[in-house]
């Protein structure tokens, strides 16, 4: 094998490392605001990701360096022949134990994060007490049911519940919890900016909590191939101040019980989102 091939095999790991390092600068990294997650939990998940990325990068660069070194030596020394050996007990132990230790470390290290993210016992108490909405995924949209102002969300629909579609408003500055359902097939509730992802399964009601660390409009997409319109299944999660959120609910109440007369008559045919525009 010529030296050209050595350079060829050297080029790819270098290109991989360089593009990886540059990714955040050119916007190829995590979505939103310079790759910074929009929730505190998300930032912790990112930390875990970077840790794993670091470990795998060290292993990758190390093995590639050894590979290139071996190729280079082989190509510059035609006299030395390779020898065949059958196994090396010491080596086997090393490359079993080291990854084992790393994996065990990662498994233990992430347990708290996993518990905070997924186990209801560890959810913020306030969020669990008052789920803000029931989110129903269906082909190909997201439907939301809020309890009436001042009331708690009930598992079954109530006569004064508030409804909206493809636009979930949540208050800022506190953890919120939703009850996730699916009406038809398997969907996945995915807030890329907040690093929240949870499958929605027909017949189950799954609690999901999140807390955005800044106000804004975030994408809610479906992360499970749920049918031909999967890519269209997109909604907005609007994180706003408590006052704005209450205002939104008030507006929604007004619209929902609108009888064709009275105050909101002027824009009665407008969609809900328009009527609540500030």
């Amino acid at each position, binding site marked *: 094998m010529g030296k050209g091939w050595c350079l060829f095999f050297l080029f790819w790991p270098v290109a991989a490392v360089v593009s990886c390092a540059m990714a955040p600068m050119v916007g190829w990294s995590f979505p939103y605001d310079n790759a910074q997650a929009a929730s505190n939990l998300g930032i912790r998940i990112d930390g875990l990701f970077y840790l794993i990325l670091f470990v795998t990068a060290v292993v990758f660069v190390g093995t590639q360096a050894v590979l290139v070194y071996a190729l280079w030596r082989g190509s510059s020394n035609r006299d030395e022949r390779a020898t065949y050996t059958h196994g090396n007990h010491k080596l086997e132990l090393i490359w079993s134990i080291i990854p084992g230790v790393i994996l065990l470390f990662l498994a233990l290290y992430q347990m708290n994060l996993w518990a905070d993210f997924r186990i209801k016992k560890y959810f913020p108490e306030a969020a669990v007490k008052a789920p803000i909405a029931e989110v129903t995924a269906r082909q190909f*949209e997201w*439907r939301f049911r809020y309890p009436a102002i001042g009331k708690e969300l009930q598992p079954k629909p109530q*006569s004064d519940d508030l*409804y909206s*579609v493809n636009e979930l408003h949540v208050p800022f500055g506190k953890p919120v919890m939703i009850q996730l359902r699916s009406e038809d097939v398997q969907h996945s509730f995915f807030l890329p900016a907040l690093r929240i992802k949870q499958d929605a399964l027909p017949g189950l009601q799954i609690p999901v909590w999140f807390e955005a660390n800044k106000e804004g409009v975030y994408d809610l997409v479906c992360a499970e191939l749920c049918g031909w319109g999967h890519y269209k299944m997109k909604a907005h999660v609007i994180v706003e101040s408590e006052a704005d959120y209450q205002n939104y609910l008030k507006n929604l109440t007004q*619209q929902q019980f609108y*009888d*064709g007369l009275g105050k909101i008559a002027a824009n009665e*045919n*407008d969609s809900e989102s328009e009527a609540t525009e500030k």
Partner: protein
Amino acid sequence: MRFGLSRLSLLLLFPLFSLTGCEQPQVNFVFSEKTNELVPEAAKPVKEALVRQFGNPFELTQFEGLPTDFGDVEGSVKTVQASSGEEKLIRFQVEGLQDAYPKLLGLPLEWTSGKGQGQISRIKEYNYETGTIAVDKTADIDPQPGDTFLVECTRLQFGRDLYNRHCMHCHGMSGEGTGPTSRYLNPPPRDFRQGIYKYTSTKPTAKAQNADLERTVKEGIAGTYMPSFKLLTDDEVSAIVNYVVWLSIRGETEKKIVDELFFDYSKKVVAERTSEDGGESREDVMEELKEYMELDFPDTLEFATSSVAEAWEEANMEDAVVVPETPRVPDTPESRERGRKLYLGDKTKCATCHGPQGRGNGTATQDFWTNPATNEKYPNRGLHDIWGNQLPPRDLHRGIYRGGRRPIDVYRRMYSGIKGTPMPAFGGPLSDEELWDLVNYVMSLPYSSK
């Protein structure tokens, strides 16, 4: 092991198998079944007239008098870029297209002043950012700063592009409701060509308002496959609705002119007329048809288009909307009880279809109904809509309101009925108070213990 011929052929067949799922949708406006049932001598002028009036999906034609927005834009030449001798295009910067649909590419541009006045150039390049247009270089086209031009139909093109992207898959290229996905959907996607939409805010005989259709696009229809398109901008939604209304008008115009011809010149009727019993010769019938086409057809076409256009225009007037005279009667047990009595009573006969308990299983669902269009009995028991689909009456306990869950929406369903379905309009027979009592009763059903 050798890689045998059979394995090779299997491998080659693989892409074929994978591609069979990717069927291409219909790319032209389709004509209705009834049009195709006319004798060719009658069908041909109908089809030609439709193409003349409405064009095809790639080249939409505009004609005056429709209530849809074609979006003609006028612009003028700002500067002309000097082009080298071999260049086949003339590029010039324009003014006045700031609000135009960004994709003017391929559209005809008519020169309204200057040397090329009256000439039409096709837009070969268009840069929205810089406002630069390029057209073919010819002897007559010599744009000078200040020359004015007109680009037609940009709004409709915008709507068409969005429609083809978001709606066509179910509703079909010409709004006939048979897009590639339609066969998997129940209820099936709406066929727009009758110009009838179920959920409107308008009076029983009126068409839908643009605002009603915009609301449907934005909110979706709960309980059906029509999803919400809330993330589209208001402008996009209104462009889609503009195009949908245009497709409706096209379909309805076709229906009207074909209905005129059908009783005399369908293949079946002509066969009967020229049979031994009919006693007419084919030449006579064709002569009569030719005469009709020359003398009456232009008027029929004109009348069909203008009456359809007028109906759409009227629907968008303020007084077309159903507005209750009295506000909602308070939702009390007494009001619900009054509503329940009305529901079960002879005055409304709600229970006949929706069932005594509102489960959607009234006695009417067991009858064989007559198709009002053909006067023949449907092959299946139960109610049907005018699109020929079997239509179970709504189970009122499910809490799913396709036409919207606001009290006013339910009120309007009762006042105007549901267009295109057997749900009748109670706006006349029932007073406002009675309608509200019914609304209160019906809206309480999903939460009742019964």
